[in-house]
């Protein structure tokens, strides 16, 4: 379960360029729920996902994930919690250039001390599931946009996290690839994952895998669209 209570997030608070990115956000997401957060650019979607994804703490308010209050945790513990609990899929995939697909996918396992054979085993299983086995040793510079997307999903899943957070995952994909992506999301939901997707792509919000859509504007959650 994910619970946010009266969460505020300020950037450069007190400075002339201060931004009130999240303004009194309260949100409750159940386990195995798939939630889509919609809204225009700059509405605060990515900031909200970053707090839920444990990338940083809110300025004020309470964020509780799986019963653990994260609002005041130092970075070190946020990182520990993030790698055990959250799988993050970024808008621009953010894979590391110069590394192969399989090397990119297994990066989250390196600081955990997982052996090479175990890493390969886990990655190959995921690649097979995502139909990317034939590209496993390719440099990421030599694969297509859809394959990059699937590699990014594989990396998010390699630690078997219960929560998947995706920030504008279909922004750089065509309709076919966006549908493929949502099919994978539906499979993950069927596996019991909790899913949060920030997107202004209508295809995402209307997909059958999505249980609930939330709308954001000016850092505030507005009424759900359906």
């Amino acid at each position, binding site marked *: 379960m994910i619970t946010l209570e009266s969460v505020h997030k300020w950037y450069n608070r007190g400075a002339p360029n201060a931004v009130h990115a999240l303004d009194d956000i309260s949100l409750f997401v159940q386990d195995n729920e798939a939630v889509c957060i919609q809204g225009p650019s700059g509405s605060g979607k*990515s900031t909200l*996902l*970053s707090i839920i994804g444990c*990338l*940083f703490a809110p300025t004020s308010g309470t964020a509780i994930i799986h019963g653990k209050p994260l609002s005041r945790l130092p*970075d*070190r513990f946020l*990182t*520990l919690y*993030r*790698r055990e609990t959250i799988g*993050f899929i*970024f*808008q*621009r995939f*953010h*894979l*590391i*250039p*110069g*590394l192969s697909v399989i*090397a990119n996918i297994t*990066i*989250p*396992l*390196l*600081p*955990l*001390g*997982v*052996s*090479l054979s175990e890493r390969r085993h886990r990655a190959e299983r995921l690649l097979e599931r995502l139909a990317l086995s034939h590209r496993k040793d390719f440099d990421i510079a030599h694969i297509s946009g859809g394959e990059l997307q699937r590699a990014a999903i594989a*990396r998010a899943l390699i*630690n078997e996290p219960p929560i998947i957070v995706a*920030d504008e995952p279909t922004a750089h994909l065509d309709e076919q690839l966006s549908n493929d992506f949502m099919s994978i999301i539906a499979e993950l939901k069927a596996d019991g994952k909790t899913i949060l997707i920030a997107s202004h792509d209508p295809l995402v919000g209307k997909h059958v895998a999505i249980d609930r859509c939330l709308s954001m504007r000016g850092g505030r959650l507005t009424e759900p669209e359906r």
Partner: protein
Amino acid sequence: MLLGNVNRHLNILDYALGSLWRNRFKNCGVLLVFSLVIFIIASFRLVTSSLDNSAEQVLSSVPDITVQKMTAGRQDVVQRIDIAEIAGIFGISEIKPRIWGYYFDELNGANYTVIGDAAFDAREQLPGLAIDYRGTYGERAGVSPVVVGQSIITSKNLVVRNSFSLFRPDLSLKSFYLSGVFAETTSLVTSDLIVMGIEDAADLFGLADGELTDIIVSVANPTEIDTVARKISERIVGSRVITKQQIRKTYRAAFGWRSGFGLACLLGSIAAFIIFAWDKASGLSEEQRREVAILKAVGWQTTDVMSVRFWESVVISILAYVLGYLMASAHVLVFDGLLLKPVLLGWSVLNPPLSLLPVFHLSDLLLIFSISVLPYLAATIMPAWRSALVRPDSIV
């Protein structure tokens, strides 16, 4: 737990190696400059230790005690009768007269060291010094035998001929024939040396009968050398008594000073390199910042990112250390210290044709390691820490 920790470090090392390879052009530049710095430092140490070693071999033939006479603060001749003054000192095993002087050869502007040895014999080996004997070819009345150093062979063109002449103070000529040549291994001190009988040396320098430049004393028990030296200085008024240990110290000081001066100059280049390393490690490109942010976003701790940078520095510095030391060894062993030998031996007209035989000391390896690798690692820690502080949300 322990296995997991070992695996973690192996994984991070593996990632660091991959990262070095991905940035290979930048890293090759650092590696090359670092190797060059270590090459120069190691070359200095190897050439110096080779010279020390050569000097040590040669100094084993230096007399236990050399007695000279001082008049008005300057060296003067010793009288042969002074030998009787010290003959009774307990512990002395042998006393020999000697003439030691310098001959300036105007033809080629070189200074030769001339030693007149009372025990010199054209057919017998001089104790402690390796000599290649040429036999007695050229022996005839009025022509004296000599043993010369390697540089004299070239200087006096003695490759094809066997005899040469030097001027007495009254400009009359005194002729010599070559009975032997000092081996190249002793060139550090024998290169410009001409050894002859003591009467021939007195004749060449125009010394009066019974006049010497020094008296050579051998002591039976090496631990008694200082005591015997003190007694000699008490018996011969105005004498200067030099022990073997003092000569050894003088040689060491001469080479040690040059080596120390060279190393002091090199400290500047080490400092410059450390600044260069700091600068390289600090200047993160946008690509590198993004990579750190990705790593942290997918669950890497700041310490994990620092470990990657640490391993990168370790690999670069160890590689540079090995490469630099191997190049230095090749420089000394194969190229005979081509770049540094003139600096450490000096620019004499008669350069000793000495072949360097490097001596590898563990202390030298550790010294070079501690003044190159350790400062490099220290210089990259702070930039590594700063680079690891990139926030994971910067890629969102």
